[in-house]
């Protein structure tokens, strides 16, 4: 079969025969490949741990960002109540950036969840194949002549070898994706570290920095309407908002 499929088959098979060197005595090949299987299984377990760690980190970030959203919202209200509309706007803009980032995080967490699931299944499948290989090995040794056993063991070893190569490939792809997310998680960490309202007073340049790193939601209109809504709420006598003296923020202008 030509095409992508044929080409892909050829590449994988070359890898498998490298994995199982046929020049060896079959029983040695068996022992060797069994050892390889165990190594791979260990690697899959490690890879799985990496994925879980990455997922937990993203979940933690997501929680922190959600807290930031609440905080910024409250602070925007306080700023507005204190008569500092510019500061309120800055807080809302920041909130909208964080909300956009939160959405991205949720998608990534779901993707990692799916990867964790499929790696767990891969691991179980490989383990089942290894068990089958183990018991077949004994049966073949007991039932067949040396020459026949060699042929049958080769076939079984190829089957396991292919499974190993495939699980290795699946793991590699999962880890590559996890790696990509790590870079993004770092950017989110920086956003989170930049803090909410307290830091706004010194954010003159910091905000630009974050804007460059994170895709900014074009939240202009959303911010405007939120500001209007807050103003209306305040005008309606919602005196629940805090009492930030506008004088405290006098030096701030966004």
């Amino acid at each position, binding site marked *: 079969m030509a095409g992508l499929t044929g080409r892909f088959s050829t590449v994988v098979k070359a890898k498998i025969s490298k994995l199982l060197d046929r020049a060896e005595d079959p029983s040695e090949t068996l022992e060797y490949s069994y050892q390889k299987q165990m190594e791979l299984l260990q690697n899959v377990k490690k890879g799985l741990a990496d994925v879980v760690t990455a997922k937990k980190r993203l979940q933690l970030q997501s929680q922190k960002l959600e807290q930031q959203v609440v905080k910024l919202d409250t602070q925007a209200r306080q700023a507005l109540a204190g008569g500092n509309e510019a500061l309120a706007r800055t807080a809302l803009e920041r909130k909208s950036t964080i909300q956009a980032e939160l959405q991205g995080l949720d998608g990534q967490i779901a993707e990692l969840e799916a990867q964790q699931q499929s790696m767990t299944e891969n691991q179980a499948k490989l383990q*089942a194949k290894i068990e089958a290989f183990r018991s077949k090995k004994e049966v073949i040794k007991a039932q067949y002549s040396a020459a026949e056993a060699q042929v049958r063991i080769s076939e079984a070893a190829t089957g396991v070898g292919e499974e190993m190569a*495939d699980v290795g490939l699946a793991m590699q792809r999962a880890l590559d994706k996890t790696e990509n997310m790590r870079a993004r998680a770092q950017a989110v960490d920086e956003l989170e570290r930049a803090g909410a309202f307290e830091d706004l007073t010194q954010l003159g340049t910091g905000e630009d920095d974050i804007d460059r790193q994170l895709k900014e939601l074009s939240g202009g209109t959303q911010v405007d309407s939120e500001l209007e809504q807050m103003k209306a709420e305040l005008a309606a006598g919602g005196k629940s908002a805090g009492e930030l003296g506008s004088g405290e923020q006098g030096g701030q202008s966004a």
Partner: protein
Amino acid sequence: MIVRIATEGQYRLADEAVARVNALDNEAVAAVEAGDEARFTELFGQIVALIRAEGTPLPEDELHGSDVIVPPPDTSFEEARHDFSGDGLIPD
């Protein structure tokens, strides 16, 4: 014939279905060569769907090498390009 969808698993597939996979595969190659990403994505999706629908999954205690190995279902157009022209999807 035994067909593996890489990262997914092995299926036993009738010759008639294999012939259809082969035809789609050739079209997919043409799409890659033409730089037609949408067409490639559609054809490759059809290949994977066909194998899943018509094939019988191989039991876990059966150990066979595959006759044909199809690239992973999440293969991107870029990877397919690379796979077709160079070293393939599997790093050394």
